[in-house]
């Protein structure tokens, strides 16, 4: 069993980059404390021997792919698709440069 990565300012910077959200220095400090408390509590899960247990991704283990006939059905109009766009022009969503 690996040692878990400690919470540090650097680790939280990586997490911010991965999640695409930034937090301020005060939140960083608070989150480190809160995460450490939370992990201290969660770590109890590691005492269980689960080596032979099959993981459950959903309790019913449903895997019924929903197929349908390949028939064109009603879908959003261009207006509907764009109605919530922060910025749109004609048939397009407008975003800043992708680079």
């Amino acid at each position: 069993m690996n040692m878990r990565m400690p919470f540090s300012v650097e680790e939280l910077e990586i997490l911010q980059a991965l999640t695409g959200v930034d937090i301020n220095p005060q939140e960083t400090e608070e989150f480190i404390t809160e995460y450490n408390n939370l992990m201290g509590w969660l770590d109890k899960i590691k005492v269980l021997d689960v080596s032979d247990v099959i993981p459950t991704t959903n309790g019913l283990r449903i895997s019924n792919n929903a197929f349908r006939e390949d028939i064109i059905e009603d879908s959003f109009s261009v207006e509907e698709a764009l109605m919530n766009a922060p910025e749109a022009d004609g048939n397009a969503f407008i975003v800043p440069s992708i680079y």
Partner: protein
Amino acid sequence: MLFQKTAHELNTLLKAKEISSEELTEIYIKRIEELEPRINAYITKTHELAREKAKQVDAKRVKGEKLHALAGIPMAIKDNIQTKNVLTTNGSKMMANFIAPYDATIVRKLKNADVVLLGKTNMDEFAMGSTTENSYFGATKNPWNENCVPGGSSGGSAAAVAAGEACYAIGSDTGGSIRQPASFCGIVGLKPTYGCVSKYGITSFASSMEQAGPMTRDVEDCALVAKVLCGFDEKDCMTLDVETPDYLTSLGKSIKGLRIGLPKEYFEYGIEKQTKDKVFAAIKKLEELGAIVEEISMPHTEYALRAYYLLAPGECSSNMACFDSVRYGFRGGNMVNVADMSRESRTLAFGRELKKRLMFGTYIQREGMIKDYFLRAQKVRTLIRQDFEVAFKKYDLLVTSTTYAPTYEFGFKQAEPLRVYENDVYTASANLADVPAITIPCGLVDGKPVGMQLIGKWFDELTLFRVAHAFEQATDFHSNIPVIGGEINA
């Protein structure tokens, strides 16, 4: 007072033409206008739509059309459920201006039943929280005590029903988000079996666990609304193609001889004495009604909440990636390129708890972490499920408290974050095992409601309704009504 009546009582009045849907709708709208400045149960009010719909239903009734039992009855829907051409904010700044371009499957079903939508109810941002304090639109107050939280995340739905601002409401439950607020507000709430209710059009939080369900004044209403919500949907491949029984047929049946398991572990986690006393008094009542109650052990219970608080943030961190401010959602900040635009917009629009869970859910799935935490939690989920399988070999259902205590004051979460998480211990196991669970009022402690939770076998909502109804008929806890601001509710 009409706003305190159940849907089935109102249906009787509507059918007898003692009142019209339009009149009823006006009563609720007046109630909402009076109370909303204090309760804040709604994010969006759809009163004009409600009036229009009520008028249509009245016209249908005059014509003698066959109408659903819920037709013309004013209700509310949690704001993470897409409602065409109506704001659907998810309690977040990110979606504060989002107008849903389509109906969730359950909204379509409710519309087919001719319900009257009064508005969209407040919730913790993207359903993450158990107090509504994480809503961008301000917290909802508990009608029983305005200094206290209504519970969450479906706190707006629970408060709306308890305050008589809606006859019933729809909530969603990922770890207890229907049952805990229903318990805190003294109403009935059902989390159906996973796979019963379509998730199409409901904003995903932890997709493998969440289900929408009814929040109602009594068990009969709960059965009535559940029947509308449940059923296979080709748009949600996680719904099961099984026929939904008529839940109303389970009402009024004896519970004599039913075997009920009492998981002892559920009463070991800091449950407050007065709450425990109320729940045990309720259990005694079930015995008086002929049920056989026996203590059992569900040995993995103490790990359930830990598994939940690993799986839910883990799943949420993936689901939240779609909020990138490209096709919808808040956009702001200094936009140099599209990646910065998305990150700055998310930073400005997401609240603290959401960021905390997003980053945490990402952390426990990082290389070197995922095996020991996220994947381990999925294995623990198997053990939780096995506990239920063993229990249900011998018992028809299980009984527990819904929470360890009644509602608490605002701000408690900041002081005791883990204690607030721990309140989910009673409810989250049902989400992990995907079994149905219902909460029903079983008394008051210091003027605050306490709920008893019944947990059933997979797809056996019938037994839950049967036992819940028998209990309700033998007691009068469901007639307790909050006194709001000194008014006397006769």
